[in-house]
């Protein structure tokens, strides 16, 4: 019993961290642009493909491979995805900033289609699943008879580091301060000499790069990546962000943990729970929004008469 409990706890933490990283991107972008970037999940899931391609390119070009060079390839992927985010913002998303919410939503859903199709066509045999290596393997420690892998530790520590870095960036750097100011009141931010374009660029880079890391971890966790993983990654990440309260960083983390928790609970305690996990997840989403429409840690929206 204790074994099962610890095993599920490990699963929960691993999955929860990945969802939280995805949710942070949604929340960050919404907070600054007030736009739901529905294709954020797809952007994030491009990273395993870019990493694989980069690893291959490295192998061919300079004849190196192995864990060190895989790490280099993942770094390249993270940076590249950050740039992709910036470009998508400039070309598409920013234009929907002042459009009705519905338009932005549909446009970014369509953008997701485009991204998935591009992966499918640009990546060799893009329609097929591709094996993705564990970024860390081996058993790190044993708790109550359960083996905890280095991968789990990597996910948890990477998440912690990223969250701390993100908080430090937002709280302590001038650019972070500007991002927070612009997300609160765009007009006054401009009166304070803050340039929208820079803020948007930085936000998209950071959000997409964090998403890329989540994408790499997700593919590594599943051992495989596919061009359409972004759909579910996006839905779950978005749900986590909304449950936590869009625009709230702690909320995004909380939302990620809750969603992963429901999934793990359903799989453990409900017969055939694995196939019903999404049902439970989205029933929870509905429930939370019914009773706290602004999300758990979100600010209530006041309608002014």
């Amino acid at each position, binding site marked *: 019993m204790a074994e099962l409990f610890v095993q599920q706890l490990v699963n929960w933490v691993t999955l929860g961290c990945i969802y939280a990283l995805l949710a942070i991107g949604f929340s960050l972008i*919404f907070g600054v642009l007030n736009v*739901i970037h529905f294709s954020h999940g797809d952007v994030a899931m491009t990273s395993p493909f870019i990493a694989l391609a980069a690893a291959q390119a490295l192998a061919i070009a300079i004849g190196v491979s192995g864990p060190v060079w895989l790490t280099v390839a993942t770094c390249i992927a993270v940076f590249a995805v950050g740039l992709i985010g910036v470009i998508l913002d400039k070309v*598409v998303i920013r*234009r*929907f900033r002042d*459009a*009705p*919410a*519905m*338009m932005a*939503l*549909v*446009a970014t*859903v*369509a*953008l*997701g*289609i*485009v991204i998935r*199709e*591009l992966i*499918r*066509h640009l990546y060799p045999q893009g329609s097929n699943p591709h094996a993705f290596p564990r970024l860390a393997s081996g058993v790190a420690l044993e708790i109550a008879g359960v083996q905890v892998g280095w991968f789990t530790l990597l996910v948890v520590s990477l998440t912690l580091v990223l969250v701390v870095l993100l908080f430090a960036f937002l709280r302590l750097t001038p650019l972070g301060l500007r991002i927070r100011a612009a997300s609160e009141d765009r007009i006054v931010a401009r009166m304070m000499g803050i340039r929208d374009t820079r803020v948007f660029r930085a936000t998209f880079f950071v959000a997409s790069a964090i998403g890329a890391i989540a994408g790499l971890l997700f593919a590594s966790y599943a051992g495989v990546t596919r061009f359409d993983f972004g*759909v579910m990654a996006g*839905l779950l990440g*978005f*749900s986590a962000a*909304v449950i936590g309260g*869009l625009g709230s960083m702690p909320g995004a983390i909380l939302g990620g943990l809750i969603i992963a928790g429901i999934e793990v609970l359903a799989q453990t305690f409900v017969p*055939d729970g694995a*196939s*019903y996990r*999404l*049902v439970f997840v*989205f*029933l929870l*989403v*509905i429930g939370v*929004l*019914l009773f706290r*429409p*602004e*999300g758990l840690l979100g600010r209530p*929206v006041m*309608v002014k*008469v």
Partner: protein
Amino acid sequence: MSTHTSAELPGLGQAAFVAVSIQLLSAAFLYLILKAEGGWQVIGLLALLGAGFYLIEKRPQIADVVTASFSRVPVVALITAVAVVLLFPFAVGNNTYVLHLLIVAQLYAVLALALNFQLGSANIPNFATGASYGIGAYVSALLAINFGLSFWLTLPAAAIAATLFGFLIGIPSMRTRDTYLALVTIAFGVVVQQLLNNFTWTGGPNGLVGIPAPSLFGHSFASPLVVFGWKLPSQANFYYLSALLVVVAIITAHRLHSSRIGLAWNALRADEIAARAQGINVAWFKVLAFAVDAFLAAFAGTIYAFYVSYISPDNFTFLVSVTIMTMVIVGGMDNIFGVIVGAFLLTILPEKLRAFSDYRLLFFGIVIIAFLMIRPQGLFPQRIRSYGESR
């Protein structure tokens, strides 16, 4: 947005000529694009369409003359329309693929009209129209398979079930808005789809097979349709059935649009607080929009189930809901005609783009984004109500 100018009324003969020739031209265009094979033909036809819209955009008088003509000779226009719809399968002949496309397009037109009550009239997002569609299909299929109920009886049963679902997903709309409401509907859509995928009595991922074909006055819809010695493929049965449903949907849409209900929806779309100050029970009208949407979608679902005789959860995914939504936006929110055009265009286009084999989804996505950027008001923007201006 068009402002009303009824300065010069076209003469009767001229109006009849314009109305008839416009409809015949449209039918011919539809025929050509359905028959087109090879990418360049499709692209050529699309370019023609684009040029047409460019012309209308540059010279709005053309659109005014056309609408004035139609309202001048409504009976002539109606007779032409009925004739075109009735005779179209004869022109198509034995090409069952084209008939299939037309049936699907008509069902999507009904779905788009259903969603239009919400998205167009009241500007309430709903990413669960696909789920209502699925509930309609599954309820009627299950009733037919398990209880041997006839198609004509499952139709209302499915509609009632879906309407109840519509009320259910409408309830959160009283408390949530915009993005949050969109997520609630997405969540409902995923839940329904996942349940259909997992329950054993819905056949799980394999779905339901062997849905019996409907019959009317002893004529089975699975057998060819023979009219005055002309033999049409069995698809023609469903073509006429779905055409009839489109007519019902148009009448429903028109009646609601021109009643105080449509006005109330428009009011809460424009300004919810002001709508409340006019005595409109905003919460109720929002829920109502969900219910009407689901009601009509269920009809489309039922016909679809009996037409293909095989349904699976894959037919009713989130992406289906997004497609319906796109049809409404591309066609023109709150414009009945525009929404139908949007549905036809977006059903037929991806099929025809099979010419580009694999690239059609990519193209589809790019078209949607480009559309939202360049012409967010849709092909046919909403029109100001006119109230029989002849007085």
